């Protein structure tokens, strides 16, 4: 009787432990994409997590994507909005390119190169306060062409994917990942100055 009671208590406890563990895994994991992407925070271009093998080159060691798509080059830029808004600038090319902004809870925004204006895709990820500030600083005669996205959380990463339809396009796909720039908009800057600055490394 007492053994049955203890077993019932144990099973109830197992249920609680199960739920608590599953909910805690994303926060405690050190192998998740947000934690791993953080090593790229100081880079001004995406860290390549999956480079398309060219010829017989094996994939690089930093390829931590579990089941990578063998035809898609992937790069990540980590951001921490406490340092300021993050600007991601991509130039569209012949290859299909997608950008997605992820937080710890999942992707909160995604855009493909079809949304580009005159071949350029400018994404600015900011907090609500930084968004209000940017709106207040906007010049009415010269509206900003940036796509502004308010992030639900301060830390996350942007994923750049470039699809190489043919094996011969793989070097171009890898180069397209490297050509994307990820910069921190300095908070004091005028919007126009902030927009010009990141364009330089691309030019």
């Amino acid at each position, binding site marked *: 009787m007492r053994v049955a009671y*203890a077993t019932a208590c*144990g099973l109830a406890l*197992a249920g609680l432990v199960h739920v608590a563990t599953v909910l805690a895994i994303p926060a405690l994991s050190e192998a998740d994409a947000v934690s791993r992407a953080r090593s790229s925070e100081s880079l001004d271009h995406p860290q390549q997590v999956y480079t398309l093998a060219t010829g017989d080159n094996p994939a690089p060691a930093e390829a931590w994507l579990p089941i990578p798509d063998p035809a898609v080059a992937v790069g990540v830029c980590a951001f921490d909005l406490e340092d300021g808004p993050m600007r991601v600038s991509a130039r569209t090319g012949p290859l299909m390119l*997608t950008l997605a902004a*992820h937080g710890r809870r999942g992707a909160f925004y995604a855009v493909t190169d079809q949304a580009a204006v005159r071949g350029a895709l400018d994404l600015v990820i900011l907090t609500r306060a930084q968004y209000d500030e940017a709106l207040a600083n906007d010049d009415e005669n010269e509206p900003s062409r940036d796509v502004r996205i308010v992030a639900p959380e301060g830390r996350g990463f942007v994923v750049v994917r470039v*699809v190489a339809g043919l094996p011969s396009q793989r070097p171009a796909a890898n180069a397209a990942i490297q050509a994307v720039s990820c910069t921190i908009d300095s908070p004091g800057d005028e919007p126009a100055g902030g927009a010009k600055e990141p364009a330089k490394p691309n030019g």
Partner: protein
Amino acid sequence: MAPAAEAARPGGGAAAPAGLLRRAWAKASTVGLALYAVALGAGLGLASADWATRGGYPFGGVAVGPWTAWPRAGSPSADPYTRAVNARRGEVPLAVGEGLLLTASTDDSGRTLDATCTYRLSGVTPPARAWTLTVAGRGTPDPGRPPMREGFTSTEILREADGRFSITVGPEVEPGNWLPSPRATGPIRLAIRLYDTPVAASAGSLDREAVPALTRLGCRS
């Protein structure tokens, strides 16, 4: 406590040590049962959480014929198990605006896809700017068997005049679009990734005609 003191007071009798022993045993068994309950709870809870978040997503998929679409794997509305699986594997799932992942581990008649069998994947894919088909076996790849080809892209494949296509997955060399089995034996899985597709937002409305059929042609015995 009080009866034990009374029993001990008359002194010297054989009943006193026996009563004490019984009480000690009862106390020890209570502690033991409590420990057993805690150990059972912790052990079962952790083991079941590990089991549920290991490998693929336990649920959240939309079944379309032999394929399962995972439209919410990368969105903030993903269920906690999906998030835990992504966190443990370091996966960067496709976001809704980016694309859609479809996986298959069985053929049209429900049999598990096997590396020794030949399958034909034919028909059309849902509309997308680009798609890729990937084949993978479970576990780590065999080092003695370098992959000849892991997948096809929508640009690479040979098509019929009407735009339909047929891809053969199997261990034997085939003419046309041949995708070699990734390993000699064991279960295999197929994945279609649709990039920049309008169906990602409405995966529930996909019907069987819109995804490729997967038929088993035969098995090497």
